């Protein structure tokens, strides 16, 4: 069964149509990449999946229930684009707080901090950390609940290549253990690391496929070029 099913999702923000009838499915136990340029509606789609986005029409089903249901809140982890942790608490205090909200103890908090490589900084106030460290602290606060679905909005922005590599290995390890991950990024070179790709542009879904299918369909090895090819095709279709 798919972890997430989105049908005809339309979201308006003011007069602007941010999502124009999106439909897609996210398979369980895989890393699905949500890619597209800044402003394409990625964050809005993720917010709809975790149930904090007002939607105009359409449906979002998560783990068999309507998105945002009370029963889902202990099963879904969400990391916003800007690190949403308390700057005036230490990394450990943040992790313990979110652990407590998920009914877990101090050991789970320590494990999550170690998982994101912040064990040495656990006693530091978040406001004293670098941007990349803050992002990882925020990630630890989502890992701590051991969610079945992990929704990550641009988790690798501002990280050095070594850390990025480590995080992607971590994501795949989680997926192998059965967790479903949705990871958004505007960096197309991260697309190749995903099991599945959703390409979003101007509120429309350009592609829902595996990286290999995308390469085959567009006849190019380079995913950047593949994206460009898709944009041209959809523009030609729209003009015709």
């Amino acid at each position, binding site marked *: 069964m798919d972890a997430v099913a989105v049908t005809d999702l339309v979201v*308006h*923000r*003011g007069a602007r149509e941010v999502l124009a009838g999106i439909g897609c499915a996210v398979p369980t136990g895989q890393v699905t990449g949500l890619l597209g340029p800044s402003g394409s509606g990625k964050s809005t789609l993720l917010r709809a999946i*975790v*149930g*904090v*986005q*007002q*939607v105009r029409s359409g449906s979002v089903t998560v783990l068999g229930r309507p998105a*945002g249901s*009370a029963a889902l*809140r*202990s099963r*879904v982890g*969400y990391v*916003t684009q*800007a*690190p*949403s*942790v*308390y*700057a*005036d*608490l230490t990394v450990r*205090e943040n992790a313990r*707080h*979110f652990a*407590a*909200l*998920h*009914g877990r103890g101090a050991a789970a908090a320590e494990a999550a901090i170690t998982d994101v490589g912040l064990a040495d900084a656990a006693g530091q*106030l978040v406001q004293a950390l670098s941007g990349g460290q803050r992002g990882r602290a925020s990630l630890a*606060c989502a890992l701590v*609940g051991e969610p079945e679905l992990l929704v990550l909005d641009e988790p690798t922005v501002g990280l050095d290549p070594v850390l990025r590599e480590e995080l992607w290995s971590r994501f795949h390890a989680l997926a192998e253990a059965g967790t479903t991950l949705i990871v958004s990024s505007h960096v197309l070179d991260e697309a190749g690391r995903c099991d599945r790709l959703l390409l979003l542009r101007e509120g429309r879904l350009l592609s829902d496929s595996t990286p290999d299918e995308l390469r085959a369909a567009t006849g190019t090895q380079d995913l950047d070029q593949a994206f460009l090819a898709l944009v041209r095709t959809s523009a030609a279709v729209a003009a015709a």
Partner: protein
Amino acid sequence: MTAALSPRLTAATTSRVLRQLRHDRRTVAMLLVLPGALLGLLYLIWSEIPPAPGQPETFDRVGLTMLGVFPFVVMFLVTSIAMLRERTSGTLERLLTTPLSRPELLLGYGAAFGLAAAVQALVTVTVAATVYDLDVAGPLALVVLIAVADAVLGVALGLLASAFASSEFQAVQLMPVVVLPQFFLCGLLVPREQLAGWLQVAGDVLPLTYAVDALQEVGGSTAATGTMWVDVGVVSGAALLALGLAAATLRRRTS
């Protein structure tokens, strides 16, 4: 909204808010010292002026009232800014995706700042009674109790007000809007029975009026009076109502 409130999740919020406060030492120091210092200034203002014949010392009346007004104002400000920070930092959106319910979040806040207010009131009342010889006929413990009820009212109104502010500039300006009319009409500046009828009615529906009345009851009689308990009940009820409204204005889904 979930049917039952979880004491565990409420306590997790309370402990988190208190931890945040603990890291901000200067705020803690200001919370504990400033009301007593300001009361000292009031004491000095009236120390050389003899009271009108047959009237109590002006400082006894005004100082006692201020013991209820300080926690109300301070907690209103602190909470409206704290809640605004939750909103703007994205932590509120994140909390709303966790098992924590909105009433649990707000009650957690109320309990945290209520506890802080209890410590503040203990310090301020002790200073007032020992250093400034504030004359209160009734037990000082009741003064502390009323001060805490006022603080919780301030917390609840601050949480509600933060829903109508999208920046710190706006939040700070809501303080005089919420506090000053209540302060003007509570009977401290002009005895309530001398106010025009419609202003009396306006005072009747504002909760700070009851807070001040409760304090005057403690100031004037050696034991707790029925009026005082009714006043405390009205203040607590208003706080609960404001918390309920704050929970209702806290939207899980935003545009």
